[in-house]
C-alpha cells in the first residue's frame, strides 16, 4: 500500500508539506521537526526551549529495564505518528468489524460511534458546550485544550508546567515533553466546586485523543474537581504508540478525582506518566479502568507533600488475549499524618497477563503516616497469567504500612450458588467477575459504568476482537 498517498489524501496542503519533509528525512525525531511543531502552534519561546531540552534528554535516555518488554516499538518510525491520529482513517467502512459490532451491542449512538472510531475529529455539541462554557466562566474556571492554554495563559501555565513530571523522569516522559500535542488544561480558582464532571470531549476545537497528550490540572485551595478522560467503547488508532503525561497540582484543602477509562484497540502501546502533588489536607484520587491496548504501563502517583494529605488509587485491569496490563501506583509520603490507599483488581483470561507494580514509600519524618494496599487478581483459565511486584519502604518508625494480595480463580461455591438460583454457568461467571470489579466500577460515572459492565459481559462471552 502506498502509505504516503493514503495519508496525503487526508491533509490540507500546509500539513501535507510538513509531512512531506518529514517523510523524506527518513530518520526519527530531530530538532527541526520539534521547532517546526512549536512554530505552527505559535508557542512562546520558553515552551520551544523546553521542547528542545526534552528532546536531548529523550535522545540520551534508555528505555526502562524493568517492566514490560518494549523492544517491539520502532522509535525510528515515530515521526509518522505526529499527525493527529484520528484524522488518518477517513471512512467508517475502514473501521474494523469488531469495533463496529461492539458499538452496536453496547448501544452507542451513530454520531458518537464515528467520533470514537476516529472518523470524525470533533464532537458537534454546540448546545451542550456553550452552556457548560457559560457555567464555567461564571465560576472563573479555565478549561481549554493544552495548546490553547499555552498561547492564551502562558504565565499561568508556566508557573506549573513540568514541575510535577520532569522531562528527565523517564524516556517516554521526555518524548512527550518534546512533541506533546493536545490534552487539557484546567484551572479551578480557590473554593470553587465544579459540580459537573469535566470530560475531554467537552472542549471545542479539540483534536480527539492524540498520541502525546499533555494534561495539566491545577486545583487551587479548597476547590473540587472531577475530570474524566477516555471512554469504554473501543477506540481504533493507527498510531501504535501513545505516551501521555498528566500532571495534577492539588493545593491546600482541594479535592480532585481523575478518572480514566481506556479501551484502546489491541495494537496500541499505551505508556502513560501520571503524577499528582498533594498539599496540606488535599485529596487526590486516581480511578483507572484499563480494558484495552496491547500493552499498558501506567503507575499513577501521588506525592503527599503536605500534612494530612490523602492519596487514593483505584484500578481495574482486564487482560485478554494478546494483552498485557502492567499497572499499579506509587504513593510517596513526605509529610506527617498523610494517608494513602491502593485498591487494584485485575482479571486475566485467554492468555492475557495482568501485573501489578507498586511502590509505597514513607520518608523519614512522615510521622503518623498510614498506607494500605489491597490487590486482588482473578485468573480465569490456565493460559493466562497474573503477577504482583510491590515494594513497600519505610524510613519512619512512627508509621504503618499494610499490603495484601491474592491471586486465584472464580469460587466453585459461588458458581454453584448462582446456578442453584437458576443462572446458567457462563452467566454466573460473568456476574461474579462484574461483582469482583464492582468496587472500582462504582467510582466511575454511571454512563461509563453501564458500558463497562456490558463490555465485561461481552468479553466473558467470547471476546471482542
Amino acid at each position, binding site marked *: 500500500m502506498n502509505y504516503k498517498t493514503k495519508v496525503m489524501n487526508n491533509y490540507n496542503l500546509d500539513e501535507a508539506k510538513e509531512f512531506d519533509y518529514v517523510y523524506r528525512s527518513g530518520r526519527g525525531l530531530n530538532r527541526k521537526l520539534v521547532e517546526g511543531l512549536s512554530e505552527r502552534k505559535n508557542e512562546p519561546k520558553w515552551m520551544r526551549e523546553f521542547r528542545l531540552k526534552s528532546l536531548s534528554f529523550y535522545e540520551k535516555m534508555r528505555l526502562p529495564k524493568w517492566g514490560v518488554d518494549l523492544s517491539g516499538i520502532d522509535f525510528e518510525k515515530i515521526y509518522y505518528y505526529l499527525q493527529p491520529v484520528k484524522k488518518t482513517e477517513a471512512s467508517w467502512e475502514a473501521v474494523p468489524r469488531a469495533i463496529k459490532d461492539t458499538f452496536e451491542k453496547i448501544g452507542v449512538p451513530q454520531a458518537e460511534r464515528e467520533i470514537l472510531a476516529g472518523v470524525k475529529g470533533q464532537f458537534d455539541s454546540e448546545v451542550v458546550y456553550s452552556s457548560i462554557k457559560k457555567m464555567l466562566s461564571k465560576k472563573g474556571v479555565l478549561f481549554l485544550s493544552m495548546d490553547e492554554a499555552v498561547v492564551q495563559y502562558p504565565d499561568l501555565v508556566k508557573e506549573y508546567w513540568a514541575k510535577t513530571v520532569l522531562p528527565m523522569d523517564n524516556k517516554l516522559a521526555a518524548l512527550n515533553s518534546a512533541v506533546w500535542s493536545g490534552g487539557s488544561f484546567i484551572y479551578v480558582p480557590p473554593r470553587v466546586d465544579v459540580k459537573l464532571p469535566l470530560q475531554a470531549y467537552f472542549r471545542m476545537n479539540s483534536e480527539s485523543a492524540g498520541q502525546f497528550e499533555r494534561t495539566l490540572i491545577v486545583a487551587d485551595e479548597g476547590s473540587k474537581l472531577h475530570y474524566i478522560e477516555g471512554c469504554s467503547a473501543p477506540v481504533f488508532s493507527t498510531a501504535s504508540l501513545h505516551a501521555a503525561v498528566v500532571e495534577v497540582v492539588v493545593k491546600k484543602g482541594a479535592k480532585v478525582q481523575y478518572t480514566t477509562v481506556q479501551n484502546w484497540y489491541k495494537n496500541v502501546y499505551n505508556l502513560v506518566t501520571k503524577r499528582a502533588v498533594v498539599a496540606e489536607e488535599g485529596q487526590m484520587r486516581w480511578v483507572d479502568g484499563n480494558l484495552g491496548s496491547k500493552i499498558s504501563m501506567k503507575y499513577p502517583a501521588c506525592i503527599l507533600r503536605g500534612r494530612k494529605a490523602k492519596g487514593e488509587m483505584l484500578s481495574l485491569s482486564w487482560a485478554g488475549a494478546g494483552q498485557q496490563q502492567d499497572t499499579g501506583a506509587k504513593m510517596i509520603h513526605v509529610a506527617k499524618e498523610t494517608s494513602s490507599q491502593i485498591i487494584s483488581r485485575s482479571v486475566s483470561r485467554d492468555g492475557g497477563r495482568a501485573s501489578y507494580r507498586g511502590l509505597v514509600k514513607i520518608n523519614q519524618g512522615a510521622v503518623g503516616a498510614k498506607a494500605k494496599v489491597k490487590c486482588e487478581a482473578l485468573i480465569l483459565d490456565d493460559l493466562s497469567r497474573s503477577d504482583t511486584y510491590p515494594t513497600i519502604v519505610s524510613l519512619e518508625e512512627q508509621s504503618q504500612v499494610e499490603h495484601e494480595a491474592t491471586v486465584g480463580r472464580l469460587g466453585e461455591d459461588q458458581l*454453584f*450458588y*448462582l*446456578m*442453584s*438460583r*437458576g443462572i446458567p454457568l457462563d452467566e454466573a461467571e460473568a*456476574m461474579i467477575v462484574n461483582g469482583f470489579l464492582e*468496587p472500582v466500577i462504582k467510582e466511575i460515572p454511571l454512563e461509563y459504568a453501564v458500558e463497562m459492565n456490558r463490555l465485561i459481559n461481552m468479553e466473558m462471552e467470547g471476546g471482542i476482537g
Partner: protein
Amino acid sequence: MRMSFVVKDLEVKVGEKKILKKVEMIINRGELVCLLGPNGSGKSSLMQSLMGNPIYQVNPEAKIKIDGVNVSSKSVDERVNNGLFLVFQSPVVIPGVTIREVILAWQREKKRLGDKFLGSKDDVWVWKKTIEEKAKRMGINKELLKRGLNEDFSGGEKKRMELLQLTLYEPRYVLIDEIDSGLDIDGIVVAAKEIDRLVKKEKVGVMLVSHSQSLWRYLKPDRVLVMKEGSLVKEGGAELINELQDKGYEQL
C-alpha cells in the same frame, strides 16, 4: 399419577470416599418431610447432591425425578427451572452481586428458554417491588438488598435472605438445610409460617433438616426420615421426633 419428587438408587462419592449409600426416598406435593440424623450422617451431602453440586459424584444409575422428569443428568440451573430449590445451611458470600441482579438474571434465562416453567412476573419494575415487599415480610432491612449477596450479613440475616429467595422462586419441591440455626424467635416464627403456607396452600413438597426444638413447635411434619452413616435407616410419623429426642440416635 400423584406428583412427587422421587429419588432411586442414589449413591454418592467424594473422591474415593462413599458418602451416601443406596438412598431411596419420596417427597409428595403438599407434604412436609423432616430429615433427621446425627452430625456427619450425610444430610447436607444428600441435599447438595440432589441439587447437583459438582463436588459430589453421583452414580450414573441414580434417578432423581421431579414430577416424572429425571434430572439426574441435568445441570444445576436446569434443575431449578424444573422446580427444585435448595435453602443453604451456610450461604456463600458473593461480593458486588445484589439479590436483584440474581433475580433479574434468572428471569432473563427463563425468558430465553421460552418461559415454559413456573413464575410469570417478568417486568423489571414489578420484580423490584415484589422483592421489596417480600423482604419486608421476612423482616429484612431494605439496605441489605443493595449489598452484595450475604456480604457482611449476620447469620440471621443470611437465613432470612435464603427464605426471601425461597418465596421468590416459587418452586415445586424445596430442600431446606437448617433454616433455623442463627435465627431468633421472631425469625423462626416467620420461617415456620412461610413453610406452612408453602406446604398447605401452594402444595409444595418440602424436605427439612432441623435439630431445633423451637421449629417443630410451630410445624408438624407428615413424615420423618432418619439418616445414619450415609443411609436412610428409619421412616415414621411425627412421633419419631420426640422418640429420638428422648432416646437419641444410638439405638438405631
